[in-house]
């Protein structure tokens, strides 16, 4: 099953490498990983999207928690949550037809064209993993995709629940 884990940890050199090392050492899967400091610069927040059965997931959560510089870990997928990922897509926009089509698809998905080259449009879009997958697929029907970069997903629990010290 796909899970999204949110980790709060000390913003120190080596913290990230311990997380990544743990996943490879114990053969846990990482689908996406994002990391950045929080509003409190002494803390980092990592979001990891992973897949595994319940037993594997239990080990992942426990093993991450065991790392000395990890303060908290939570499985966002256990409760109502919001998941977002940013994607930048560069596509060929050679003629009027393809330019119109790309613009139309971007509008439907609430994306924005953020750069235009001679024959290239670059589109920005946020959404959950499903929306992004659908967007890229739809684009690929209409034009040629030149480059895709995805941020990896971030997530937050709905309602009062907050991951903080």
């Amino acid at each position, binding site marked *: 099953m796909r899970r999204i884990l949110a980790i709060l*940890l*000390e913003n120190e*050199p*080596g913290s990230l*490498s*311990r997380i990544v*090392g743990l996943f490879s*050492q114990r053969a846990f899967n990482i689908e996406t990983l994002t990391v950045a400091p929080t509003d409190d610069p002494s803390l980092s927040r990592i979001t990891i999207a992973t897949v595994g059965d319940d*037993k594997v997931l*239990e*080990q992942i959560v*426990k*093993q991450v*928690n*065991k*790392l*000395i*510089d*990890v*303060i908290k870990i939570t499985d966002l997928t256990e409760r109502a949550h919001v998941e977002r990922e940013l994607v930048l897509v560069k596509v060929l926009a050679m003629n009027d037809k393809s330019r119109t089509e790309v613009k139309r698809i971007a509008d439907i998905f609430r994306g924005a064209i953020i750069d235009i080259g001679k024959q290239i449009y670059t589109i920005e879009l946020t959404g959950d993993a499903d929306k992004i997958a659908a967007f890229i697929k739809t684009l690929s029907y209409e034009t040629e995709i030149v480059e895709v970069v995805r941020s990896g997903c971030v997530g937050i629990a709905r309602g009062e629940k907050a991951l903080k*010290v």
Partner: protein
Amino acid sequence: MTAKLYTGAEMVVKALSALEVKYLFGYPGGSVLDIYDALFQQDDVEHVLVRHEQAATHMADGYARATGEVGYVLATSGPGATNCVTGIATAYMDSIPMVVLAGQVPTTLIGDDAFQETDIVGCSRPIVKHSFNCRRLEDIPNIIAQAAYIAKTGRPGPVVVELPKDILMPTHKAAFNIELDVQMRSYNPTVKGHPKQIKKAVKTIANAERLVVYSGGGIVLANAAELLTELVETLDAPVTNTLMGLGGISGTHKNFIGMLGMHGSLEANKTMANADVILALGARFDDRVTNNVKKFCPNATIIHVDIDPTSISKTINAHVPVVGLVDIVIEQLLAELKETNFQKNEAALKQWWQQIEGWRSVNSVSYVPPAEGGKIKPQQVVEAMYKITNGEAYVCSDVGQHQMFAAQYYPFAKPRQWINSGGLGTMGFGFPAAMGVKMAFPDSHVICITGDGSIQMNIQELSTCMQYGIPVKIISLNNRSLGMVRQWQDMVYGGRHSSSYMESLPDFVKLAEAYGHVGMQINTLDELDSKLEQAFAMKDRLVFVDVLVDEKEHVYPMQIRLGAIDDMWIKKGDKA
């Protein structure tokens, strides 16, 4: 008045002395020469110069296992640090508190592939509890204090501290501030078991008809042997120890049914297999215990007490998990038993013990003594050793058949008496570990039980023993082979002894003498007791006793590969 200023190197030593560190095991080199200079100018911390950094880690480890304190190591950058890796991994697998201070090239050169630069924090990352890249001299004291705190609290383990040369040098100085009462927002080792889980555990225990207590190294680490004994006696339950847990209850206690696992006793493994409730205390269901996890005790309800949540339900699912320090949890269990007015189920116990006595009567841990004039059996050496030392020695083992014979034939009365690399199985561990133990307890008998293979993996330390006067007794069960490998080749590989035979063994007696020690060889059974007695009588000398034993002897009983916990060979060709 302005505060006195210190160099980074002085801070290292001052921090160690603030932590009341007695011994620092190490080896010098370019990046740590400032620390050595600071060590030279004080008397608080004694530095012990080894002959190989791996031995420094094992010495610190042995010291830590015997005393329960943190063991400290100092090594230079690059090869000095990488030589520590095996010792760090050994300590990690057995949860031993250790702090390794490793030099590093100056911060200005890090990343340049400078001379003797290795990323030791990176190299050791999967085998440490935690590590620190120290980058500012002001941070040195508190990083060392934190390292010690992390190493010894919760589930203990090794911590690496990397110290670049430029923050150690006399060119920079700062005030010395150390907080010995360490507080960390990200690290609060859980200590007490959850009351609800304690209640559940006691209920499960009270309803059991065939309970077994399965205890491991956690009991030793938590100094919980007396509590374990009290619990076992309260319940009148059979108790088995893991290889790491030996001494957690006296080896001669009537409720003790021996070690379990691969070379455990038949009664221990049978009792586990037939139990309806397994109370696991500070043990981790290692694969050398469970055998095939798919066939592991399918009918038992498992209560698992461990300080480390990751150990619970990792290999074997626990029905009643209890996270907590095992000593505190046993106290809680005892209190709850009292509270609920626990009464033993005498009828069930009687039946259960009858069954166990049946397995016991097979006498699975036994051997056939040699015929008149035949070669000494390795088991006989361990028995003689037990007799002569009154069962009171610290026995530090290397890895191989001799290790299993020692575990089987030397019943340990107390925890910390049995010191071996159970998790990693590091050949070369025994001798330096024994040295560390002897430094901690100079008046006790300290034995290194070893083999002709293992002893050669750190034999250079004979020189260290001479320098510091460390009179351990080395008892080598010399079977002219890598016995444990050979045994597997006999059993699994059609008797093809591929590279398990040690040709060109040195003359160990002469070798010991060359280092200035006493060497002795024992060839025949009739001289075994007398020569061993002689060796132990030489209190102030290191004696290397080279005992020529029967090279054909196998370790039995032995679990049958891929079978259930109690599927065992009792002797050659004889299944349980």
